[in-house]
């Protein structure tokens, strides 16, 4: 769609911009040219109107020779040749007009008086066309900028959307129902423990809901959430569950997306411990790795990565459950949305061991204002 022809308001503005051009042409014809002002007016108005529309064709040649990719010689050649051709056509039109006007009594003799002005007309035609070229290049780049902005906004909205969706999917209803069932059992067995579990469950839910609004949290907070989660699960699984944790102390202040670690632990319980009669183990490990080389002395704020690892054992003979791995897919997607290539995610099963490993840039939490 032509940026000017396709938009009435712009067409009006464009034609308005032609008024001063026409005025200059009129002035040149009347004063140095010695033309009668009525004859000059009769020539200038239709000629400028015609040429205004002819100049709109600059859009096509501008589009086919973009400023960014075309060589200077190609730009100059294309536009100069077009300018000369269009201007020549314009002069021919002026000639036709003078012949037509000469048949009226008021303009008798105009077909002899006007031709000396042809060079002036030709020169202004070339100049005006080149101005039109410049105008169209400006319009084109404006359009491209707007397009880019739109795409960027769309991408941002999409990313945000998928993140929210992922967060909503995190709260597993089965976890809730099973925990509530445990509480209902405890009420008649041991009221004190039932109350304790209610408090732990509330604590976990409050933390989870609070995290949905944040974009990053300190790893310390995420580990806190994991501990509340495990406290609830411990009541359900009792001695069947054993958990190990090994976290580099500097890592606690690193910024991570919320609900990054908890889904991994939940996954480890759902597909590990809950399928093992004799019980199972989970091991959570957080460490640093230098980006360039595997250097244990990497600076926290330098080019170092945070490596989060969750290992667990499982029963390889159990068939995969439907919907398994949704939590992991969510974590992977959120990592990609936020960090792109700077983060990596891997999940591997090796005999009866399952290991999820996440690498992401280590960034310290900014100090609270």
């Amino acid at each position: 769609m032509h940026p000017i022809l396709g938009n009435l308001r712009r067409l009006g503005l464009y034609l308005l911009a032609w008024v001063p051009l026409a005025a200059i042409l009129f002035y040149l014809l009347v004063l140095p040219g010695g033309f009668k002002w009525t004859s000059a007016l009769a020539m200038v108005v239709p000629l400028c109107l015609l040429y205004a529309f002819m100049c709109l064709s600059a859009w096509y040649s501008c589009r086919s020779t973009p400023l960014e990719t075309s060589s200077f010689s190609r730009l100059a050649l294309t536009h100069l040749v077009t300018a000369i051709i269009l201007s020549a056509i314009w002069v021919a039109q002026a000639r036709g007009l003078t012949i037509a006007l000469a048949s009226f009594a008021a303009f008798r003799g105009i077909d002899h008086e006007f031709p000396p002005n042809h060079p002036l007309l030709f020169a202004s035609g070339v100049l005006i066309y080149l101005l039109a070229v410049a105008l169209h290049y400006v319009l084109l780049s404006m359009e491209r900028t707007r397009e880019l902005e739109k795409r960027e906004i769309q991408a941002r909205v999409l990313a945000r959307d998928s993140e929210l969706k992922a967060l909503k999917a995190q709260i597993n209803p089965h976890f809730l129902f099973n925990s509530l069932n445990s509480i209902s059992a405890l009420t008649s067995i041991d009221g004190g423990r039932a109350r304790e579990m209610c408090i732990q469950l509330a604590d976990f839910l409050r933390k989870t809901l609070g995290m949905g609004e944040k974009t990053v949290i300190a790893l310390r907070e995420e580990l806190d959430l994991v501990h509340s989660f495990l406290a609830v699960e411990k009541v359900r699984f009792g001695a069947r569950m054993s958990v190990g944790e090994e976290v580099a102390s500097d890592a606690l202040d690193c910024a991570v997306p919320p609900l990054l670690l908890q889904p991994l632990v939940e996954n480890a319980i759902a597909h590990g411990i809950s399928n093992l009669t004799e019980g199972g183990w989970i091991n959570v490990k957080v460490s640093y790795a230098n980006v360039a080389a595997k250097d244990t002395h990497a600076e926290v704020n330098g080019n170092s990565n945070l490596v989060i690892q969750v290992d667990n054992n499982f029963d390889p003979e159990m068939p995969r459950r439907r919907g398994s791995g949704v939590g992991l897919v969510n974590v992977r997607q959120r990592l990609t949305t936020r960090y792109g290539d700077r983060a990596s995610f891997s999940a591997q099963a090796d005999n009866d061991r399952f290991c999820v490993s996440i690498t992401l840039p280590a960034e310290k939490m900014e100090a609270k204002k």
Partner: protein
Amino acid sequence: MNVEASRPLTAIIVDDEDLARAVLRELLEKHREIEVLGECANGFEAVKMVSERKPDLLFLDIQMPKLDGFEVLELIGSDIAVIFATAYDQHALRAFEVHAVDYLLKPIVPERFEAALERAKQRIGQPVSPPVTQLVSAMREAGQFAERIVVKDGARVHIIPIGKLDYIEAQDDYVALASQGKKYLKQQTISSIETSLDPKNFLRIHRSYLVSLERVAKVEPYGKDSHVAILHDGSRLPVSRSGYARLRGVLEGQSS
């Protein structure tokens, strides 16, 4: 109160969580007419205990270690009234397809529990007509094929992952599942087992034989009009004329 209460009803509770079993135990305490024979924490124990003690009623969790609730049901036969108790509502449809008496959602509502028990008492003594083996296909979710087959051998349970299954041979009312040099007998028809397997991997080469395509080493002519399939482990299986046509169709489809 209950006319048939002269003989106590027997029940077994199967759930992998102590506290979940405790809820059911407590709800059953009020019912003197029901005797709880025992509790199991996984599918293996459940199959063993049910075979040995033959209860009237079974409370069954679905997601459990070793065998899930549906697999337990498949192995123990159909003359036991089953009440499922689970936190997962997406299995309800399948539960009724396998003729469960009821489906209780956790946390268990006492009124719902009483209603389920009432239904179970009416059901006990009237075994459901279709044998469970024919319901196996109903137990899978639509569009999914079995990933393993469970077989009961006395009180022992064998789990055969589909990837380790070589071929299946029909033997009267049974099928023999050949896996890694051993054969396991299961009460099921070869046609019903065929529908539960991915047709991309398993092919019916004969009225009585279903073979894993990966295991077929070569096919040789055998007598007039018939062929024999030789597997990588040396087993020789007869191939019928229509079976040979199917086999050729698949093998040509793979090479093109």
